[in-house]
């Protein structure tokens, strides 16, 4: 007990003696930013360098996403070596592992911001990790740019101006399918299988709102948990609805199962729409390509496996530079392409910033006007505004033919068709 008394006394003494700590840290308004940029934060950026930090699950259950930073690194290495960096600033990209655990993400975010003194967090991956860190980044006024999750809250929230997403959010994707059905099957009866979490509910909710007042109706819906071993019972229930469209809102493992169950059931042959998350070739292959002919999905960036882009200059550059700067990584893995696309989006945003400061970047990513990124599909551009925190809201439909996806129809701009997305 005496020890605790000593301890308590020590605490009191120290509190009295030292008081708090100055929350300074980080330079403001150095030579890099004169004039209008005076007084803004320039931590992590100089005239010749810019330091970024990313947090990804390199280990643990979601470690497949660990390929994304490889594509990003290859892009920055290429830009540093051959283009002199972004606006003369060489990019240093530090990747930390959170194992898809929110508390670890918080620790790594603090490490990157306080110890590594990064200019910005360039991508945190996953909705839980991003939710756990965005209060911190916004309190510290550190940009948290292009987070890798499709939840719609990054764009609709107004209390976190320093955080912004990149990929089309799930509601926008749902709108794309709704638009397609409205035009091609105006009387469609839809059966939905969805994952019972924010992702599944975001997409299903968005779909329902988008078909309000049209002839398209949801006639059956079934949910599953990520921990379920199989979705066969759900599929049997959905088949009884005799719907003529099946909307498959799943993550890869369950996407495969649903595709296989649909193929096996010869008495029910709906139009099968599988969401983008589960649309990769690796999901379709185990089902057998002959069983997934005519399945519909949507996308927004170029697929490295698609021969359409064989002679596309950006795709050729990507494959060549991947070989040069990331020789161990297979350029045909779409996660690498995703990384490349998001890194070049950052390049464009940073170049557009009027001030080379944290505030400058924050404002630049919320003021993207029709910015073309070559790795995105033609017609898909980055577009944001003060009330619009969703860089990509356009997607194009694709149909599975032979051994690959084939794009069809025009790029669907969900902003134009449905108006802006608000909370």
């Amino acid at each position, binding site marked *: *007990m005496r*020890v*605790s008394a*000593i*301890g308590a006394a*020590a*605490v009191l003494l*120290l*509190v009295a003696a*030292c*008081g*708090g*700590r100055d*929350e300074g840290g980080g330079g403001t308004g150095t030579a890099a930013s004169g004039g209008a940029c005076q007084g803004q934060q320039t931590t992590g950026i100089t005239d010749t360098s810019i330091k970024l930090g990313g947090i990804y699950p*390199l*280990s*643990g259950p979601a470690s497949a996403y660990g390929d994304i930073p490889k594509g990003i690194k290859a892009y920055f290495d290429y830009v540093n070596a051959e283009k002199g960096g972004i606006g003369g600033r060489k990019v240093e990209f530090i*990747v*930390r*592992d959170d*194992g*898809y*655990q*929110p*508390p*670890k993400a*918080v*620790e790594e975010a*603090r*490490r990157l*911001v*306080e*110890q590594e003194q990064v200019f910005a967090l360039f991508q945190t991956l996953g*909705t*839980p990790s991003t*939710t*756990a860190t965005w*209060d911190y980044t916004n309190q510290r006024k550190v940009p948290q740019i292009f987070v890798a999750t499709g939840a719609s809250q990054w764009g609709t929230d107004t209390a976190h101006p320093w955080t912004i997403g990149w990929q089309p959010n799930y509601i926008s994707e749902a709108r794309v399918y709704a638009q397609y059905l409205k035009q091609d099957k105006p009387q469609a009866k839809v059966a939905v299988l969805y994952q*019972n*979490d*924010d992702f599944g509910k975001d997409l299903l909710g968005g779909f329902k709102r988008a078909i309000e007042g049209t002839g398209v109706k949801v006639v059956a819906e079934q949910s599953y*948990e990520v*921990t379920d071993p199989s979705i066969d019972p759900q599929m049997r229930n959905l088949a009884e609805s005799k719907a003529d469209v099946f909307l498959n809102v799943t993550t890869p493992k369950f996407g495969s199962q649903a595709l296989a169950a649909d193929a096996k059931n010869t008495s029910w042959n709906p139009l099968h729409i599988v969401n983008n998350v589960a649309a990769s070739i690796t999901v379709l292959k185990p089902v057998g390509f002959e069983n997934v002919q005519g399945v519909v999905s949507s996308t927004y960036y170029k697929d490295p496996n698609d021969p359409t882009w064989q002679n596309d200059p950006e795709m050729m550059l990507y494959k060549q530079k991947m070989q040069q700067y990331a020789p161990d990584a297979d350029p045909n893995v779409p996660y690498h392409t995703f990384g490349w696309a998001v890194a070049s989006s950052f390049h464009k945003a940073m170049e557009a910033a009027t001030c080379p400061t944290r505030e400058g970047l924050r404002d630049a990513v919320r003021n993207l006007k029709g910015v073309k990124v070559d790795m995105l599909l033609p017609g898909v551009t980055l577009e944001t505004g003060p009330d619009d925190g969703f860089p990509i809201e356009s997607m194009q439909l694709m149909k599975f033919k032979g051994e690959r996806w084939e794009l069809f129809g025009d790029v669907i701009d969900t902003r134009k068709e449905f108006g802006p997305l608000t909370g």
Partner: protein
Amino acid sequence: MSSAITSVKTSVKTLAATVPAARWRWLAVAALLAAACYAPFQLAPFHVFQLTMVLVYAVALLGLDLLVGHAGQISLGHGAFFAVGAYATAIMLDRLALPYPLTLPLAAGTAFVLGLAFGVPAVRLRGLYLALVTLAVAIFLGPLLKRFEAVTGGSMGLTLAKPQPPAWSGLAEDQWLYLLTLVVAVAAFLVAGSLLRSRAGRALHAVRDDEVAAEVMGVRLSSYKTLAFAWSAMFAGVAGCLYTWVIGFVSPDSFTVNLSITLLAGLVVGGLGSMSGPVLGALFVMFVPGIAQDINDAAPGVIFGLLIIAVMYVAPTGLAGLAGRLVKKVPRKE
């Protein structure tokens, strides 16, 4: 596991033999405490945060040690009780808007009651069977939390405001959270210490060493095993509460089976059945994954595993035991 427990028994004996002067130990603890009080004013906020998390894990490991190290039961589901404490706190703060100091005893109480309830069936099980049942609890909790969305926030979890330092203290948020955690952790260690020195503590050790002999001596196995579970859960609940204060966000993904396994591994690495074991284990759990990633970016998990194996090879009785073994080798002047 049983070999680890027997080796712990020997290490406890060597420790007791090598540190005869209790006064020296108190002095060391006092110095450590003084350093712990001084640290937040000297370190960067990021390191203060890391130390706060070390304290949180240390409290959780302290509870696990009561069960594994002192009572000789195995739990692979300690993370579940940790999660119960964290979620109880989050729900009280978010849905009931209780003031945060009140959440600590309530979270501890909730975890204690659940631990007690769980301890009843645990009495009938032993060794691996008990381990499997506790593992099942850890696995089953995540999906359960996702089901009751209205209360738990579902898979999106709950985001909460952190306790803010009172204005008169002039402290920064991370310093305040650290000091709060430190006070709670010190109290937890004092409670655990006096518990172990009491009649109950001796009964637990007797149960661990030989159940039959303990029963012959008049120790009621069922009540002490159940109590061990309840106490252990209570400390985990306290740690969970601190966790929610510090992180300000809970979600089912924060408390996977991995957490339970990591806690058990951390405790074994730190050293079973000693007071310093949980602290050393917490340091290991907190810092070694980061070091592992610094060594190799590509496969941090593999390096972390190898480091655990390396530590267990060098210090089979845990890091706490290692200290004891080293002290024994150095000739003492007295």
